[in-house]
């Protein structure tokens, strides 16, 4: 486990920098294809949505509905009310903690 964490920290950092530096070094034409641009906008949407889902309702390899879902509901409500990011995160944390501690 702790090895995996270190590999994750170092591997992510090396590739993150390589990607940034590559962008500054490649000719613009190579990456400006409209399809690549479009997919590049869609990939974060898919990955981040999957992360929201997995972190909210799964534990290890099971689907679990618990206090986190209440927190997520609060976050969605906050986003609908156009709350800024810190309020979104805080309202989720407070709601989830309340449900966890009270029930």
């Amino acid at each position, binding site marked *: 486990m702790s090895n995996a*964490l270190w590999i994750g920290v170092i591997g992510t950092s090396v590739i993150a920098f390589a990607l940034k530096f590559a962008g500054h070094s490649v000719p613009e034409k190579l990456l400006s294809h409209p*399809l690549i641009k479009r997919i590049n906008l*869609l990939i974060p949407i898919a990955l981040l949505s999957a992360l929201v889902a997995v972190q909210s309702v799964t534990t290890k390899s099971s689907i679990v509905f618990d206090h986190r879902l209440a927190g997520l509901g609060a976050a969605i409500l906050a986003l609908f009310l156009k709350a800024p990011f810190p309020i979104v995160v805080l309202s989720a944390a407070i709601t989830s903690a309340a449900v966890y501690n009270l029930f």
Partner: protein
Amino acid sequence: MSRVSSPTFRDSLSVSFTVGAYGVAFGAAAVANGFSVLQSCLLSLLTFSGASQFAVVGVIGAGGSAISGIATASLLGIRNGLYGVLMAPILQVRGFKRFVAAHITIDESTGVSLSQESRGLKAMREGFWLTGFGVFLFWNLFTLAGALGAKAMGDPSAWGLDAAVPAAFLGLVWPRLKNTTDKTLAIVAAIFAIATTPFLPAGLPIIGTALLAVIAGLWVKK
């Protein structure tokens, strides 16, 4: 750098501080997912890309392998490469300066720089450097604060940290959902990830949704 025009300075500083403050959420999330304070801080110093950092911490924390964590984070980091393509002709830097510029090429530095276009090339460059360094400074300070804070708290669930992480992801994806394709993809990706979690090794349900994004990109021809 000579005198910086004040509207550019103001834009850069306000973005730097606001975005940097999210570092608290990252530091807390990293520690809640089993990373040490040192590892959390190194991710902010060296990876320096919020979504990628949250992703590697989230995937490995959920039991995914280091490889799937790195792969997910790296897919999220591709966009920084594309920002680099946009910024290189504006910045026109070589050697060591290019290394530094690459490291601080993120959503915010690129966004502020491009938003200064009406103020001229000089303002665009200043916006990039000021915002890049500004976010770097605040992001790292706040990461340390969040990591230490979470460490002091103990049980992450009792403080709602386990819900703060998906809420942070939601906060990152929400502003990106601009049209029906985006929203449909978000919902399909979420359902796919949940539905495959019992069957696929941890991490794959998340990274597998990148394929959904490619399919959606090929599908929508506009």
